[in-house]
C-alpha cells in the first residue's frame, strides 16, 4: 500500500531571492519521473503540489524547488535540514522521454523551469537539449548555471531585458520550431505561456508535452478539483481532465485552450 510518508530534509538552498530548493530523502522517491510532483503537507487544509527539480534515485533523493508566494510556501521555506516533510509522492504522469534520434527542446518560464531541469538531467546526458528559459527579471532566472553544461544551446529571456533577450520565451521558441521540423518539445510555466505555445505548435510536426498547474484538493484523482479543459470538445464545451492523475504532463493533442 502506498503511504503518506515522512521524507528527510537533507539540504535547503536559496537558488534565487524568494526561491527555495529542498533536497528530500526517502526510498519511495527513487521511483519518481521528471514531470511528476510531490503533494506536500503544510499547515492549513490542503497540501501543496510541487514538481521535482532533480532526481537522484540511487541515493533516494529528490529535490523540490519553489517560489515563496503564500502561507504554505512561506512555511516550507523555514524548514531545516534534519526535519521531515510529509509527502504523497511521486504523483501524476511525468514526461515521456524524448526520442534519442531526434532533437529536443525544453522551454521553461519561472517556477516551470525546475521540472525541466530534472528532465534534462535524466535524458540530456548523451543527448543535449536546446534550453530556453524565461523569467520576469534577471533574479528570477532559475538554474541557468546548472543547465549550462548539459544544454546544446542555452537561451535566456527576461521580460525587462535584465538578462538575455528582452521579451518572452516565444521568440526563441519560434526560431527553434522553424529550424527543427521534427523533435520533442517539453514546456512548463505560467498557464498563459503554455496556452501560447499550444497555439504556436498547432502546425508543428514534432511531439509537444505541456506540464500544467491547477489548484488541487486530494492530488490523487478522487476529488475532481484540479481539472483543465481537454479534448474532446462536446456541445457543452471541452471535457475536464485532472491535472493530478491524467497530468500534470499532457500531450498537446489532449488539451484545449480557449
Amino acid at each position, binding site marked *: 500500500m502506498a503511504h503518506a510518508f515522512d521524507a528527510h530534509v537533507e539540504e535547503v538552498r536559496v537558488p534565487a531571492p524568494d526561491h527555495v530548493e529542498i533536497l528530500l530523502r526517502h526510498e519511495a522517491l527513487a521511483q519518481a519521473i521528471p514531470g511528476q510532483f510531490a503533494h506536500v503537507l503544510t499547515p492549513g487544509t*490542503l497540501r501543496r503540489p510541487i514538481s521535482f527539480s532533480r532526481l537522484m534515485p540511487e541515493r533516494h533523493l529528490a529535490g523540490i524547488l519553489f517560489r515563496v508566494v503564500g502561507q504554505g510556501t512561506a512555511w516550507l521555506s523555514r524548514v531545516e535540514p534534519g526535519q521531515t516533510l510529509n509527502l504523497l509522492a511521486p504523483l501524476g504522469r511525468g514526461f515521456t522521454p524524448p526520442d534519442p534520434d531526434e532533437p529536443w527542446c525544453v522551454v521553461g518560464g519561472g517556477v516551470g523551469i525546475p521540472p525541466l531541469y530534472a528532465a534534462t538531467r535524466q535524458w540530456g546526458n548523451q543527448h543535449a537539449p536546446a534550453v530556453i528559459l524565461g523569467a520576469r527579471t534577471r533574479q528570477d532566472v532559475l538554474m541557468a548555471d546548472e543547465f549550462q553544461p548539459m544544454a546544446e544551446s542555452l537561451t535566456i529571456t527576461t521580460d525587462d531585458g535584465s538578462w538575455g533577450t528582452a521579451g518572452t520565451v516565444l521568440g526563441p521558441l519560434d526560431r527553434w520550431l522553424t529550424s527543427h521540423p521534427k523533435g520533442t518539445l517539453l514546456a512548463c510555466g505560467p498557464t498563459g505561456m503554455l496556452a501560447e505555445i499550444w497555439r504556436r505548435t498547432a502546425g508543428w510536426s514534432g511531439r509537444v508535452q505541456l506540464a500544467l498547474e491547477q*489548484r488541487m484538493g486530494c492530488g*490523487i*484523482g478522487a*476529488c*475532481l*478539483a*484540479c481539472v483543465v479543459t481537454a479534448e474532446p470538445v462536446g456541445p457543452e464545451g471541452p471535457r475536464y481532465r485532472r491535472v493530478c492523475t491524467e497530468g500534470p504532463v499532457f500531450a498537446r493533442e489532449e488539451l484545449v485552450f480557449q
Partner: protein
Amino acid sequence: MNLTVALPRGLQLKNPVIAASGTFGFGPEYAAYVDLNQLGGVSVKGISPEPWRGNPPPRVWETPAGLLNSIGLQNPGVQVFIEEDLPFLANVDTRVIANIIGHTVDEYRQVAERLTAHPRVDAFEINISCPNIKEGGMTFGHDPDQAYQVTRAVREVTDRPLMVKLSPNVTDPGLIAEAVVDAGADMISAINTVVGLAIDLRRRRPALGGGTGGLSGPAIKPIAVRVVYDIAQRVSVPIIGMGGITTAEDVLEFLMAGASAVMVGTITFQHPQRMMEIIQDLPRVLQEYGFARLEEAVGAALPGHSEGRDFHGAPLGRA
C-alpha cells in the same frame, strides 16, 4: 470494543466511520492509501442519470480551517458507474452508499431505479443540494415540499436503506428533516457544505470558477454539530453526522450530539490514512470519556440524558 453500528433495513456497519461523498471518488482512487475493508462505509461521488460536466476551475480554495469547493457535481453518469466502478467495489468488504443527484425529481428516481438492480449498492444517500432546473434553479433541499417529493420518488422505487443529506443553508434544517422522514427516509445525513465565497484579490473576481462554493472542514464543525443536535430532537431516525471531523474526539462530539455514525471528508485530502487512525483511536477515546459501549455515546449530550461525571465520580456542576 465492538464498534458495529446497526442501522435501519439491516444496514450494518463495521464501525461508524464512512468516507464522505465527493471526497473519496468511487473507491479505487484512495485504495493505494486506505484499506477500504477497514472502513464502516464509502459514500461515492454523486451520481446522475447522464454525465455532468461540473464547474469551471479553479474548483477549490483554502480558507481559515476550511475549504471552499465548487466541483459542480461532475460525474460520468450512472451507466459508467455501473460498468466501471461497481465491479471494483464488488471485491471490497465495506458498505457502499450510492449518493444520487438530479436536476428533476424524475432524474433522482431514474438513478435510484437503475442502481436498485445492483445488490452491491447497500444504501442510498440523496443529495438534495442540487438546483431544481424545473423550478428555476432553486435548490431541492431549501424547501420542505421539494425535499419531500424527491425523497418520496426515490422511496417508491427502492426498498434499500435510504438516507437524505441535508443542506445547512436553510433557516430551519429540522423542518426539512421532518419532511424527508415523512416521505420515507430511513436516516438523515448532515451536513452538506455551507455556502461561502472567497475573492481572488489579484483577479478581482470570485476565486472559484463557479462563483460561490461549499465550505467544509473544521471551520464548519460547530455548525454541523448544531444541526445534528437540533434534528436529533426533531426526528427519531438515525443520523449520520459530518462536517469538519479530523479526530476520534470529533467523532465522539457528533455521537453525543445524536449521530449514530459519521462521515469524514476534507481531512482525507491532507491525511489519507486519518480515517483508519480514527477508527483505531475510537475505543480508547470512548473509554476515556466514560463510555463502555459505542451506543451509550449516541445522544449522550441531548436533553434528558444524565450529565457527565468528573474523574472522581462526582457530577460536574456549573460554576
